């Protein structure tokens, strides 16, 4: 498989690991931002290949995980309405809210459908003119252009029975919020390569400079991730802090201008609540005034505050890299992917789920 096999090749992975060992002198904590990177790190056991001076912290880049509980409650409420078809990516089905989730709403008779693309949900709306079709638009800069495209299509076709329940978030403001925490122990970021491919690198320069923190755009294969770590460690050991592109085959400095234009044609920047991190200014997207008719909140009522449910889950701290899954007494005991208490276990790309799936023994013992 071109563009994959060469980035998993044993010799290049081992060469990079050796290079990192030679470069590392001091202790460093490097946060990989994206859940896909966390998944790959656990899947391939990359932490085991790094010197013990380097700690990988797992960041907030799992779109399922950072979607607040109030949105899940609203999604379940809408999905259970008669004459509604609720379309979603599969990952959202099992995200728990209280004692329910979308999979249970489906079992209770809600018409919940898993789609592979938001454009498929537009097709559902087209063939079901008597139903209200709602798509759960979650994700980062990576999903926003496709969600925008779905709205543009629905508008062009004059479909009035299609809407989005929007929980779109933006990465740079979240990184800034993490660095501004008093107990922050992040020395460098591996920025999410696919987000950078869409949004470009411009937004990161001010962050790297203000907090003197290297930010390295990094891919998702084992060699990509090690290369990102190597570049971050080189900067750290040299006392430097700048934005570096380690994922040149996908990321251009300016990003994808077409996708950015499409996003801003449909959405506008808005304050946004992140699960575990609270409301972060200018960290989300909302449908703009010209497309407000496609807003599911306008049709089905605004999202309220979720009731506080203290289940003892520490996913908020995990999403900020303050704690790791094995720090939680419930990890792999009362909280498992079969019975997730929190979202970081429920989502396939959540850090808890990645630890549970891939760590030897799964008992949570750190090396």
């Amino acid at each position, binding site marked *: 498989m071109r563009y994959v096999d060469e980035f998993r090749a044993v010799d290049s992975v081992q060469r990079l690991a050796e290079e990192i060992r030679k470069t590392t002198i001091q202790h460093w904590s490097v946060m990989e931002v994206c859940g896909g990177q966390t998944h790959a790190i656990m899947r391939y056991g990359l932490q085991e290949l790094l010197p013990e001076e380097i700690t990988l912290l797992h960041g907030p880049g799992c779109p399922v995980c950072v979607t607040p509980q109030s949105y899940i409650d609203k999604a379940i409420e809408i999905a259970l309405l008669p004459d509604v078809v609720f379309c979603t990516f599969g990952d959202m089905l099992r995200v728990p809210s209280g004692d329910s989730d979308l999979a249970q709403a489906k079992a209770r008779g809600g018409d919940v459908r*898993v789609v592979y693309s938001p454009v498929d949900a537009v097709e559902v709306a087209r063939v079901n003119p008597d139903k209200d079709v709602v798509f759960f638009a979650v994700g980062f800069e990576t999903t926003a252009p496709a969600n925008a495209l779905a709205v543009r299509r629905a508008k062009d076709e004059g479909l009035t029975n299609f809407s989005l329940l929007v929980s779109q978030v933006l990465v740079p403001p979240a990184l800034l919020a993490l660095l501004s925490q008093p107990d922050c122990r992040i020395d460098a970021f591996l920025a999410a390569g696919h987000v950078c491919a869409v949004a470009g690198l411009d937004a990161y320069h001010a962050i790297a400079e203000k907090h003197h923190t290297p930010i390295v755009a990094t891919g998702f294969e*084992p060699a990509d991730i090690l290369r990102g770590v190597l570049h971050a460690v080189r900067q750290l050991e040299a006392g430097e802090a700048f934005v570096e592109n380690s994922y040149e085959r996908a990321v251009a400095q300016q990003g994808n201008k077409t996708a950015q234009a499409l996003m801003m044609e449909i959405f506008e920047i808005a304050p946004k609540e992140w699960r575990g991190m609270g409301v972060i200014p200018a960290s989300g997207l909302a449908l703009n005034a010209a497309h407000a008719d496609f807003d599911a909140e306008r049709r089905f009522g605004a999202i309220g505050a979720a009731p506080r449910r203290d289940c003892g889950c520490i996913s908020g701290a995990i999403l900020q890299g303050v704690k790791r899954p094995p720090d939680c007494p419930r990890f792999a005991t009362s909280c498992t*992917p079969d019975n997730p208490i929190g979202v970081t276990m429920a989502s396939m790309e959540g850090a808890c789920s990645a630890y549970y799936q891939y760590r030897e023994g799964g008992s949570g013992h750190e090396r």
Partner: protein
Amino acid sequence: MKDEPAGPHCAINAGDGALIQLGHGGGGSLMRDLIGKIIAPAMDQASLDIESDGAAVSLGGPAAFTTDSYVVSPLFFPGGDIGSLAVNGTVNDLAMCAAEPSYLSVSFIIEEGLSIETLKRVAQSIGAAAKTAGARIATGDTKVVERGKGDGLYINTAGVGSVKAPFAPGPSRLRPGDAIILSGDIGRHGVAVMASRAELDFTPPIRSDCAPLWDQVRALIDAGVELHCLRDLTRGGLAAALVEIAQSAGCEIAVDEPEIAVSEQISSACELLGLDPIHVANEGRFIAVVPAEHADLAVATLGSASAGQARRIGETTPAHQGGRALIRSAYGVKRQIRTPKGEQLPRIC
């Protein structure tokens, strides 16, 4: 199949566009015609006695008995259909008991409105698959449920067969140091069905590996390979099979990821769908746990029994409380294999 009093009845309308009606399951002449004129001829089974309530069969010696229900959607997919799946699935369950498939029952639960032509195609596929597997369809049943109460067609098959190995294989026979042999490349069936369900067009189309396994198992027995445990890699794939065996046996199993054959096309498709091939269903692959000294013979035998790509992928290690399966990556890092909760779902990004 219930005998009906003789009498005049309408010839069944099986022309283009003819549909199953509730009456086809009512026990009357419509049902009798459906079975006698459509299903039985399509299956072309000399042993099928549609005039009796059951079939009398004889098996010498120890026998294995199994049943399974098939609800696959869509009914037809590249490389197979619900009919061939219903035969091979049950035949393979017998084969995993080291039993030669002898007799099958086939029960149809049909949704009102299914086209009779579709049913006929499925019945033909059942007949052909049974012949290939060397099994005879001895009895069956037909029911019709109202429109909206079924997904076109469900099939249950049961099978009996004679056990041909000196002892029935099972996890309790595992010994430390046994070799794990994988019969071929993995992931084809699950990806083929998922691709047709999602209307993802791969070029060339990804075909299911749906096939009977008895010939391969018999070849192992004939070659003198001692079979400690056999498991076909259906739902949950290789991962579920390894974890189940390890847990039942209370031992540890370790396999080498680079030894697990996955075709270029399947690994690309899995990459696209966000799946790990070890979790994807197969319908024509199995693992055999054999004494280490029989491993080379088992691989050579499976190679010549046309499975292709049979490999030794790992071994059992001394007891581990509760049992677990580990996988070693190409980088030499070990991780535990977990089984997914339920249905496989595509990743979000």
